């Protein structure tokens, strides 16, 4: 079978599993929410609202229907792409996700870019002299940033650069003195498209601390992955062969070892992207970033069943799609991979 056919067959099999996975995830989150203690009516009305008001609201929200009927309606709506209405705000769940997801994706992408640059730079730094000072410093950097508790790191960065030095905003996504860019929800893109320099500046200022903190925390993954794979590549036979042909060390590293060492890093990047789609909860909470993770946390606290279900299903779908896309990309780049 040709490689292209193999690839198409693999892609078909992966995509065929997507609906099954989403059904499993949706069913699981539906059941877990109902099993978990707590009542959406309490979250909405407080514990001491009159019984009549509680019954009326329960009926209005359809929570008095048998569980199997609620489940049937949920799945039926989901198949039609209808994620329901938030019990808390009475807004369509799709609109709420549409407003929160771009914030998380924007933060995640900028952080990932910074993390990749920083992590790969540190990972490369020790290559010249294994076990030298730079190599040890790179290892220490990789381990310590990976091990940093995100909440603590975010708080320290916030206290130093926002509260102490006052260089950057403490939190939020945009300055309150300006009007938010309108459009896709990706403020960097929207302000650039509108050519509004003040909006772009405001967006960047608010992005610096959360993105840098997240990047710092993620960069260790890249550092360690690149360091290990590059070291392995440099010890391999084809690199020795390249050296013996008299190629310069620079050419050996950049043209022969690095591309092979970057393939596993690409897979790790894919997994990191997938995890960032769901948002970086602790970063979002610390920096008051109005992303999907913070929204999910609020929805769980409010027992807003449709919103929790909607966010989990959408994030799961995106994670599955990103994972498949990364697998395909790796397969396309690495001819050794068989399916």
């Amino acid at each position, binding site marked *: 079978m040709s490689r292209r056919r193999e690839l198409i067959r693999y892609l078909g099999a992966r995509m065929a599993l997507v609906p099954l996975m989403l059904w499993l995830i949706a069913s699981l989150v539906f059941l877990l929410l109902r099993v978990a203690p707590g009542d959406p009516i*309490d979250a909405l009305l407080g514990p001491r609202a*009159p*019984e009549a008001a509680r019954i009326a609201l329960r009926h209005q929200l359809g929570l008095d229907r048998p569980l199997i009927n609620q489940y049937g309606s949920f799945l039926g709506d989901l198949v039609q792409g209808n994620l329901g209405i938030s019990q808390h705000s009475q807004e369509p769940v799709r609109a709420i996700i549409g*407003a929160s997801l771009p914030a998380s994706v924007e933060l995640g992408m900028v952080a990932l870019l910074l993390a990749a640059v920083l992590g790969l730079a540190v990972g490369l730094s020790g290559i010249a002299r294994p076990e030298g000072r*730079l190599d040890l410093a790179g290892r220490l950097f990789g381990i310590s940033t990976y091990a940093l508790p995100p909440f603590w790191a975010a708080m320290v960065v916030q206290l130093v650069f926002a509260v102490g030095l006052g260089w950057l*905003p*403490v939190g939020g996504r945009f300055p309150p*003195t300006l009007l938010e860019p309108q459009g896709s929800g990706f403020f960097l893109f929207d302000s650039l498209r509108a050519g509004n320099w003040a909006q772009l500046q405001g967006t960047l*200022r608010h992005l610096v601390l959360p993105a840098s903190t997240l990047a710092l925390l993620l960069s260790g993954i890249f550092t360690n992955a690149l360091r290990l794979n590059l070291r392995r590549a440099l010890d391999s036979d084809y690199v020795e062969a390249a050296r013996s042909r008299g190629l310069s060390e620079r050419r050996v590293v950049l043209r022969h070892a690095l591309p092979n060492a970057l393939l596993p890093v690409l897979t790790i990047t894919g997994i990191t992207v997938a995890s960032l789609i769901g948002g970086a909860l602790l970063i979002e909470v610390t920096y*008051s970033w109005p992303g999907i993770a913070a929204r999910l946390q609020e929805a769980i606290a409010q027992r807003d069943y449709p919103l929790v279900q909607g966010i989990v299903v959408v994030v799961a779908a995106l994670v599955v799609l990103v994972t498949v896309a990364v697998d395909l990309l790796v397969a396309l780049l690495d001819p050794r991979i068989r399916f």
Partner: protein
Amino acid sequence: MALSPLTPLTLPLARLPRLRSRLVGLATLRRWAAAMALMALPALLAGCQPARPSGLLIIASSSRIDSLDPTQASRSGIMQTLSALGDPLYVIAADGTITPRLATALPQLSADGLRARIPLRQGVSFHDGTRFDAAAMAFSLQRFMAIGTLSYQLTDRVRAVRVSGPYAIELELLRPFSPLPRLLSSIFLTPVSPRAYRNHARSPLNDRFVGTGPYQLSFFSRQQQRLTPYPHYWGAKPANSGLALVSLSNSTALYGALRSGEVDVLLSGNLEIDHQQALHREAEAGRLRETVGPALEISLLSLLTDQPPLQNPSLRRAVALSLDRATISQRVSLGLRPPLQELVPPSLPGSDPKAWPAYNPTEARRLFRQAGYCQGRRLELPVTFRSDVPTDRLFALTWQSQVRRDLAPCLALAVSGMESTTAYSQLDKGSLTMLLYDWAGDYPDAENFLTPLLGCSASRGQRCLKGNSVASGSFWSEPGLEAQLQDSSIQTGPAREALLRTIQRRAAAATPYIPLWLTRPVAWSRRQVSPIRFDGSGRVVFGELHLEGQP
């Protein structure tokens, strides 16, 4: 060797001997460039701060606002914002007096007390330019009764709302209700423009608000709202050129935003005690302003009275006597939460500040001994706190230690945490022996504190079978108590206040609850901001705020 950001890239190349000498010079140059860039960064970042429009005030709180529709209002954050965008029928001043706002006089009651006629102000317009009149007020109240989250506050008391003239409405009451003006001071009953809401008569309109208040909404998102003065406002014009309301999700961010001058005013919300204390010290040192509003939120312990061991009233009283509120308040809240010995906030008519007994370990020990404890037998009492409220945990642990110190042979507290929504759902199931929680009435009146805790629609002896007392986790009632509660909604003046005090004393004697402390709204502001004033409903009067030197 000092590292520049470019060093990692240059080092592998440095292995090449021929380039080495060139690279040394290049690396030095790059290090200098990096150092210069790093030094310039702070100035660059500081210089990038967007210019603030003159007279605009930035106000931060922890409240995220999902909806600006008054029918969806149930939290203090949205109430505060609505109070700037809308007008209620009546307002309560800090001294407790009620004055008409959109009404022109207090409700005129029929002889049987079942019909209330409310004359309305003329010359008022909505933000969309339409006229405010009786039809608009009736539309808004009927809409609230149909879809309001707190609709029961009205539907439990009002049968129908009618237009009785171009500028007068009539409320048909289910029974006489003396705190009606206080109920009608609720900002969630603020009128909205029938024209703007015609497609939302039975559904909420979340991201817009078209009311009659001093400000109109010019931008809305969950995290930020921009308010600009309404030029055709009928009353006193705002003293500022607009407000930017921002939500920050954690205490450190809120504290830091005020400290760094990023915001002008900070409303306390969920600020941690340490941060409140730090701001308090700043205010004492004259670097900030601090204003405390009327306390309208109480914290209390509910006691499960229909099951052992707390079905014994003497034991409940002994537990109440074992609570050293003053010490615990000092330790947990650094004295910022005043101890409370009643269920009604002291600022409200009907308050009885000493209804519950004060800390008295001697008397507590006597009562425990009388119940068969202390002589080699110790009462093990489970206390549940809300694990998502840091102060609750501190309270539980401090009380546990205090009891261990003062009453070790008689009483031991077993403390455990439970997430608040879960705890609330367990209250009416009778599974929590003691739970600490807060209560803030939806409008400032004693009835709104006593009925939700003591009301009972079906009882047997001292056991409540159905009603608010069950929902509040005490399951306690007494013959005649419900009648007194109902009567307190009919009586007026000193007779009503006396009755409210009687009800409190009855509750105190049976101890189904133990009041703990008061939570007061606090606002901090930069020195450049004019002094802050709270109204009698515990909300900051935004319209009076301005940057001093900018009239």
